[in-house]
């Protein structure tokens, strides 16, 4: 680590100033960091989504859990950028495939929820410390309480959550209420009403994760640099080094100056006669010495070049765009060009892979799309209907489980107990409950009895006439306060199971039961009189 090459200004900062520096560092490398995060995490996300399309939130949670692994390439980029070293996607990929797994298990288990995770990461990744040494190192770095980094962990978690729901709401806000695209998407992409919502939520979460990660990593790394700078006095070291360099330079100048002065004195003080002969001898001596030295150097170089270090042959290969018209470039430029070409090629390849996958997916889902346009998703989406079934309407409890087991018997018992309104009300309420849950009638809170009846009539249900009769009797009692005769009630109640409950045995109703019904009717009449 050569501190003289560091690209940031070293000085002791407080915690939040250090995080601010980290934000600047993240901004400078944002594009590369975002792409790196996506490249290492997106493939797994898509593969899991493809395998488990019904669990989008669980998948995003899994990706979130593995975030320490996705953040490591970002730290690599930042650590190199600090020393003016550019990082290319190729290097990021290589790093992800080879060096990304140091202490991975610890990182995604007990260290996962550490509030100083991004601060501690450089100790493992850059200093390669583990075990006791790592602990001692961290305790030393934590000695100045890193409250700022814990704070930024909390704040960025909030930002991630807010961004997730913000983007979600932003998307939903642009979908008109009456558009059926939701149904279409539900039909095509999922099979239930809620999955699309979770899928969008999952994508928004992933997007928020991608956007927040660079700042989180950079904040932790800059705090780490700041702590080391304070503890190890990097800033002083740097100043001393600069002073030393300056001092060395001054010495050199002094020597030159002395030499120049000596030459001048010597030149002007020597007599003319001596001076006219002496140069020839001096020059000859100098040339000989130079030639001798040159020969020795050449010999030494040849000796070194003939050594085994210069005999090793290494073969490498790379993709390179051949352009014969262009002149050959220098090695450094070639390397940069090669990296740039690699990045472009990678992006292009990924785009093509995405397009091909999309086409395959659409082809795979083609029957569902055709089915939607053929028959209409709304009618066929039974699951969605189940979700929309209300448990309470018009202020009445319409849950099937809250209805008596034998509705007719219960209603007739109420009637006999002279609770006429309750008896007829139970029959009517049970009918509505059955219509909603078993016959898929869609009633709104504001519907009146006649409106409900109209819907039943429109649906051409076999029980429409019976329900119309029941509604009429109920309205007369409820609003006109006109009590139907017991015979009418008995008739309407005894017919109820025929229409609303499936017949188990058509011959079950024997003569004795008819007699019983007739007896009950006469008894009710007597009671009412």
């Amino acid at each position, binding site marked *: 680590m050569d501190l003289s090459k560091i690209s940031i200004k070293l000085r002791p900062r407080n915690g939040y100033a250090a995080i601010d520096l980290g934000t600047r560092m993240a901004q400078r490398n944002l594009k590369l960091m975002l792409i790196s995060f996506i490249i290492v995490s997106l493939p797994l996300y898509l593969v899991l989504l493809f395998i488990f399309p019904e669990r989008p939130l669980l998948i995003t949670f899994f990706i979130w859990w593995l975030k320490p692994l996705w953040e490591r390439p970002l730290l690599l980029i930042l650590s190199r950028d600090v020393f003016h070293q550019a990082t290319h996607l190729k290097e990021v990929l290589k790093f992800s495939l080879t060096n990304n797994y140091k202490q991975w298990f610890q990182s995604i288990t007990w260290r996962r929820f550490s509030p100083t995770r991004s601060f501690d990461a450089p100790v493992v990744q850059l200093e390669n410390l583990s075990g006791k040494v790592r602990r001692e190192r961290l305790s030393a770095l934590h000695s100045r309480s890193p409250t700022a980094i814990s704070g930024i962990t909390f704040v960025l978690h909030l930002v991630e959550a807010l961004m997730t729901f913000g983007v979600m709401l932003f998307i939903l806000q642009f979908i008109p209420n009456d558009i059926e695209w939701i149904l279409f998407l539900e039909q095509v992409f999922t099979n239930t009403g809620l999955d699309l919502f979770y899928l969008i939520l999952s994508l928004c979460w992933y997007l928020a994760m991608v956007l927040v990660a660079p700042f989180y990593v950079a904040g932790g790394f800059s705090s780490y640099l700041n702590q080391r700078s304070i503890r190890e006095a990097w800033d002083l070291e740097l100043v001393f080094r600069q002073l030393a360099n300056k001092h060395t330079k001054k010495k050199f100048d002094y020597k030159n100056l002395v030499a120049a002065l000596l030459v001048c004195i010597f030149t002007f003080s020597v007599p003319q006669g001596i001076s006219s002969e002496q140069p020839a001898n001096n020059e000859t001596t100098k040339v000989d010495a130079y030639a001798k030295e040159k020969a020795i150097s050449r010999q030494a170089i040849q000796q070194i070049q003939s050594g085994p270090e210069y005999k090793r042959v290494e073969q490498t290969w790379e993709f390179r765009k051949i352009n014969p018209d262009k002149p050959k470039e220098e090695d450094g430029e070639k390397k940069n060009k090669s990296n740039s070409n690699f990045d472009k090629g990678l992006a292009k390849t990924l785009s093509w892979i995405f397009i091909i996958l999309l086409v395959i997916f659409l082809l795979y889902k083609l029957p569902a799309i055709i089915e939607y346009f053929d028959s209409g998703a709304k009618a066929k989406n039974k699951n969605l209907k189940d979700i929309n079934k209300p448990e309470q309407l018009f202020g009445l409890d319409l849950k099937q489980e809250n209805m008596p087991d034998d509705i007719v018997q219960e209603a007739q018992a109420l009637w006999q107990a002279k609770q006429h309104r309750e008896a007829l009300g139970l029959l009517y309420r049970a009918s509505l409950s059955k219509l909603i849950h078993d016959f898929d009638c869609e009633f709104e809170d504001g519907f009146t009895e006649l*409106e409900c009846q109209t819907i039943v009539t429109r649906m051409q249900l076999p029980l429409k006439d019976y329900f*119309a009769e029941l*509604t009429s009797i109920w309205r007369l009692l*409820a609003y*006109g306060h006109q009590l139907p005769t017991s015979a*009418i009630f008995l008739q309407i109640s005894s017919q109820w199971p025929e229409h609303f409950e499936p017949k188990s045995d058509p011959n079950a109703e024997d003569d004795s039961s008819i007699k019983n019904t007739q007896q009950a009717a006469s008894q009710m009449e007597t009671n009412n009189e």
Partner: protein
Amino acid sequence: MSDINDSTTDNSNQEQSLQPQESAPENDPTANDNKPAAKDPIQLCHRKIQAIRGQITKAVIGQDNVVDLALVSLLAAGHLLIEGVPGLGKTLLVKSIAKAISGDFSRIQFTPDLMPSDVTGHAFFDQKDSSFKVRKGPAFTNLLLADEINRAPAKTQASLLEVMQEQQITIEGTAHTIDKPFMVLATQNPLEQEGTYALPEAELDRFLLNATIEYPDAASEHAIAKMITEGHVGDSFATEQIEAIATVKDVLTMQKVATTVEVDDSLYAYAVRLVQASRQWPGIRNGAGPRATIALIRCAKALVLLRGGQFVTPDDIKQIATPVLRHRMSLSAELEIEGVKVTSVIQDILEQVEAPRG
């Protein structure tokens, strides 16, 4: 937007007359229970009002909805505010009602220079008798057509407040009662707003109902053109063929009978829920007041009488809710900018407020 919602079919905005509910099931075994004996006062009144309606619709063609609302207003002893462009038969409607019930009729064209005394009347000094005498204004009548009421300034509009609410007119400190029945049918032109004075909320609240009069359909327009041009001079419809088949006493009787129509407690609660919802609904600047709850019940009763029913149902309240609430509610600026209409908000309220179940 229709004044009356066809709740028996769906909540769409179909124009429908307030006639007996055709959706009553044909196989309804209790249908006859709702048709009492011939001497039942409700049934008698129903026949009479239907006869009056028949006379009015001889002249007013293709405006059944407005005719029904005018009759509901008459039976409920209220006042009607009609919105519509000129030339759709508003004056004819009032004239026809007045003739059918053998009542008096006055018409005031409201203009910016109209004075309150031009409406109510004034006292003048009679030099012959050396005493003050009262010259009664056009408001002393049974049916008063206040044409383009929003063209007069607030002071003149306010002169109608007393007579509409108290059914009396005070001139020079003396209160003069007016003959009953008394009904104001005021009109507003919704298109021409320049030089108009918007009616204040207090006065709007005095109107029981707010009807919109629309252009007649092609068939009705065809019939109107034929009727007016065959054997008539000029372009106005003569009301000679309308028979006076009732008297003002009959109207007063019908108004009394309307009050006897049965209303279940749950329907009072429903009316309250609707009106309260109109105050709490998002995007509403001013909701309807307690007068609207009273108006809902009064109009529902009158509607039942018009139809010949025996009791009020939630459907009656839903059907009358839009004309009762429309002029009593005002939208926030945001909703107005978005082009939302009051009627669509009322429709939302009707769809979402729990309907009663007995």
